[in-house]
């Protein structure tokens, strides 16, 4: 029975759907996490033409053959790049981006990754690093004698040194933007990598046209909406059940055949 195979592709697709939704829910409290959606596509169609089918029979509304689809496949999972809400942490190295853009992070292998997770810290040699210890690009060193650090909306890092009245500029944080954010690839640990689909990054200071601004002392929360996810989960579960019902029905029809005497 072909319907068995078709229904199994449907169950697999819904399983993927549930996996994507459960990953969203699991990351509900992950800083700057963007929720995902699974995207499906119908598979190829078989043109079954049988002897006796007649294209001229019923005028134009009936195709001459029978088209049978063979199921569904997961085409892609894509990110929904809606802004998460900003949460006040009062931590001086916590940065949130309001608007478009990603922080640039230098991975140990020399590659640049992108992230909206701005919960930064200072390493032992004074460099601004992510929670995993990767350097934020372009590199910024905070002098050890600094008694206060201000990072303004346009990304300038200003430090106040002990005994000095004026603040000194020790660096500039830049943001990268992509034309197709949804095409960025996940590398785990809140990091994203450039792909062919995302396009190449363009970088500029925060606050430039098209780029977001920075907020010191805030982090961006995930954009997962629990109500939306639960609704999607229920829909996925029902669709899964419906597919398994097709398998059950196919099985019963096969059993009917076996009973023919």
């Amino acid at each position, binding site marked *: 029975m072909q*319907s068995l195979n078709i229904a199994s592709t449907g169950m697999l697709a819904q399983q993927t759907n549930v996996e994507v939704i459960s990953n969203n829910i699991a990351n509900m409290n992950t800083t700057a996490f963007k929720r995902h959606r699974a995207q*499906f596509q119908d598979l190829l169609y078989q043109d079954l033409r049988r002897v006796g089918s007649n294209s001229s029979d019923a005028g134009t*509304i009936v195709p001459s053959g*029978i088209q049978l*689809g063979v199921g569904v496949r997961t085409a892609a999972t*894509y990110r929904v790049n809606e802004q998460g809400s900003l949460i006040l942490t009062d931590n001086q190295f916590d940065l949130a981006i309001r608007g478009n853009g990603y922080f640039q992070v230098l991975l140990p292998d020399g590659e640049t990754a992108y992230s909206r997770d701005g919960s930064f810290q200072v390493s032992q040699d004074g460099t601004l690093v992510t929670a995993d210890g990767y350097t934020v690009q372009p590199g910024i060193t905070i002098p050890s004698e600094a008694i206060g650090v201000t990072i303004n909306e346009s990304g300038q890092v200003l430090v106040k040194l002990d005994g000095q009245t004026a603040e000194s500029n020790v660096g500039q944080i830049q943001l990268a933007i992509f034309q197709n954010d*949804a095409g960025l690839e996940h590398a785990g640990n809140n990091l994203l990598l450039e792909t*062919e689909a995302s396009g190449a990054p363009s970088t500029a200071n925060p606050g430039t046209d098209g780029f977001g601004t920075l907020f010191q002392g805030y982090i961006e929360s995930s954009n997962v909406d629990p109500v939306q996810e639960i609704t999607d989960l229920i829909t996925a579960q029902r669709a899964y059940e419906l597919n398994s019902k097709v398998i059950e*029905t*196919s099985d019963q029809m096969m059993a009917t055949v076996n009973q023919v005497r």
Partner: protein
Amino acid sequence: MENAIYIGLSRQSALRRELSLVANNIANSSTAAFKREIALYSPYETDTKMEEKLDFVIDHGTIVIHQPGTLEPTQNTFDVAIEGPGFFVVDNGNQQLFTRNGNFKLDPDNQLITGNGELVMDEGDNPIFIPQDGRKIEISPDGTISAGIEVLGILKLVEFDDLARMQKRGGSLFDTTEAPKPAQESELLQGHLETSNVSAISELTRMIDVQRSYEGVKNMLDKEAERLRTSVRKLGSPQAV
């Protein structure tokens, strides 16, 4: 003499194909812009030596139901849904095909493509280039793609008089023998996707219907086999009459 059995079989094989159709609809209940299909039956007349003719069952064809799905917000720049009967025009390298699935992306050459990699066509049947300079891309209801005040291209949107001539090609694509005409009654909505138009209730009902009809035919075949058996037994032993 075995006509009843053959007629039953013709009905059963048609029902099996209909179940495949229902299975495909259900499997694609989460596929963006998927259009459900129904089977069309007709009698197939044959001459017999008797006065009355016999009608075999034939599943004559499949019909795509082009009823629109609901539009779901996705927030993505390159997700475009069509309100109205229109189709996007895409090119797979060999020919132009039509789709209502507006889940587009950019390829390495900055061209707008579908999820399968077919190029999305503009009004002059050329690919659409989107420069990667970070400007916000707006797609207006009439298909104009713009970055700020600069117009980057206009999405080609077409309509057809006879949707029944459209054949599915997989991956939400349609092919047709009819020449497309420019869209009059369709508008675009950026950041949305059209959902599948499969209705769980009607598919489930059809599935139950298919299964019970299948069992019904099987019972008919059983009875016919029994009738043959009885008549052979009775006719074969004259003293028992």
